[in-house]
């Protein structure tokens, strides 16, 4: 009984993220003309998964009390790269996929090295690397184009047994292969420790620097998975600045909606996934309510503003004003 309470307390952020998503998705489905069909679920999953990967990447870094403003640009870069190399025979395609993932990982590792070895502030360092990654993407694809192995693309964006969206399955596999081992490992715990109380973690001999480096590197890898998926959905590569910065911004929003504290140490990548799906559902909601597309950005902004203000209700309970300042 009391074990339950401790579990709930540990997972509070993630569960809030889940609740927000379930609520929004329920409203969406209830008003969708077709209801919850396999098709609707597939579309929603495909759109959500894309942001979910970037949000997971952001969560990795945010847990260490850092931030990665280049995740969107890594996504764009790996998208452009994938549109060149994820083609041809199954062997070539496999090599291409690995190449894309490696590229994402390297980008993440560079961010990590600059922050840890270079001792730069994550905000500025990743703004600058983001510019570099976008430049490289432009070099690869000055104009939109390219191709991707369509069999593979259709397989991972389609459905398994006609109902289960395969993109969700892929995401589950990534969570199982990347996030869970990270979370359960010493390095993952060190990442949380570094985000929560860096000085205390140092005193306890926790490998802070290694943990941060791993977090940034895995963030690059996850953003690379996102870039790969973007290519599978669009069949092309495109170096669009607005798309890159959009993904970066919404990844931060998704992380917050998913209960990850921007101050570090709290939350999980699973929460960030729910946050990403919730953020995506906002956009879809406007569609089912048949809102003029011109209103869409404004309403999205207002919904975001309201969502983040909800957390402020807790302030009313604060009885010692010093708790305002952390």
């Amino acid at each position: 009984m009391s074990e339950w309470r401790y579990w709930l307390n540990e997972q509070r952020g993630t569960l809030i993220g889940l609740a927000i998503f379930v609520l929004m998705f329920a409203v969406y489905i209830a008003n969708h003309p077709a209801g919850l069909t396999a098709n609707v679920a597939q579309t929603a999953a495909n759109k959500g998964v894309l942001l979910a990967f970037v949000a997971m990447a952001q969560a990795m870094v945010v847990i260490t009390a850092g931030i990665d403003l280049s995740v969107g640009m890594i996504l764009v870069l790996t998208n452009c790269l994938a549109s060149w190399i994820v083609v041809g025979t199954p062997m070539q395609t496999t090599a291409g996929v690995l190449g894309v993932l490696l590229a994402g990982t390297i980008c993440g590792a560079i961010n990590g090295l600059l922050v840890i070895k270079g001792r730069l502030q994550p905000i500025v360092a990743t703004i600058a690397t983001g510019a570099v990654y976008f430049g490289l993407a432009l070099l690869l694809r000055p104009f939109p184009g390219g191709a991707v192995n369509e069999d593979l693309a259709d397989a991972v964006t389609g459905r398994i047994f006609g109902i289960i969206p395969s993109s969700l399955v892929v995401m589950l596999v990534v969570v199982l292969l990347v996030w869970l081992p990270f979370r359960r490992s010493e390095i993952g715990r060190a990442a949380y420790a570094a985000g929560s109380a860096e000085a205390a973690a140092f005193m306890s001999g926790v490998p802070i620097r290694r943990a941060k480096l791993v977090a940034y590197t895995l963030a690059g890898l996850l953003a690379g998975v996102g870039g790969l998926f973007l290519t599978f959905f669009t069949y092309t590569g495109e170096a669009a600045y607005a798309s890159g910065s959009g993904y970066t911004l919404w990844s931060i929003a998704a992380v917050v909606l998913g209960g990850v504290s921007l101050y570090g140490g709290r939350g999980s990548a699973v929460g960030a996934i729910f946050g990403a799906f919730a953020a995506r559902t906002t956009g879809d909601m406007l569609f089912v309510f048949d809102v003029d597309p011109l209103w869409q950005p404004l309403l999205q902004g207002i919904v975001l503003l309201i969502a983040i203000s909800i957390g402020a209700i807790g302030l009313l309970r604060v009885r010692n004003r010093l708790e305002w300042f952390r």
Partner: protein
Amino acid sequence: MTEATENRLSLRARLPGPIRRADPAVLTSFGCILLLLFLGSLYSSNFLSPEYLLQQLKVASFLGVIAAGMMLVILLGHIDLSVPWVMTMGAMMACAAAGFGSTVIAIPFGILCGMLFGLLNGFGVAYLRIPSMIVTLATNVVAQGLMVLYTGGFSPQDSAPQAMRWLATGYIIPGVPNAILVWASVSVAMVFLLTRTTFGRSVYGIGNSERAAYLSGINTRRIVMVAFAVSGALSAFGGVLLAGYASKAAQAMGDAYLLPSIAAVVLGGTSILGGRGSYLGTVAGVILITLLQSILSVMQMPEAGRQIVYGIVIIAMLLLYGRNPASR
């Protein structure tokens, strides 16, 4: 480690006042400006001509006005990501007000719109205690939404009124574009604000420890809100100037100013964590970034190469002097 710090302290204590107080980061960034000019002059002798330099200062003044507001917010330990669309909104609303026939209030109206959004940011950060990165992200989307709704997604029809063009491109002093004078006045005001007023002291204090500032009896929430309002107003003012320069407002005209304004402040030696930094450094950072962009475009480098060089140069300079102290 401690030994080195103490030696440096004692060494600096023996230097004469003005040099002792000068931030090494500021000196380095001015050094980098000279280096860039030198490299440019190897490429073309035009780089040292007064016309070119004045032209660069004029272009820099738009970024300079925006970076002044950004610096205020960064000194508090916050950040303002709503610059792009608040700036665009300032430009569009000023042009719209002029379109309604009242040229006189065009500029103040644009700035006022920016200030309102700044107040919204400040309210979210100071009173609702939401991280500034999130609030300003959301208000940026809201501002964008409003402008998309207003323009219908197309380029706005109103062109910039004469007053705006004059402010950006006219001359009061022959040879010196008014935009430079505007930037200079904003700069003088900022220096005064930061070094001589209780508001400036409070900003530095809050940036170092808002808890300590609050317990010292400072109304920290009001200071934070006012700083964000100033930042919003200056963003919008930057947009007004830019629209005057380009003779009209345009969609997404502010996108190219967010990262440079943050980079300029940080390259100028202001700590992104707040509480430390001098305005002179921000001026240096603005000139540095403007020169860099100019040199890259004079060299006719394609956009891709420009982005890469731009990013690498910022990283290199930060590695040179923008590093955190080594931990233990």
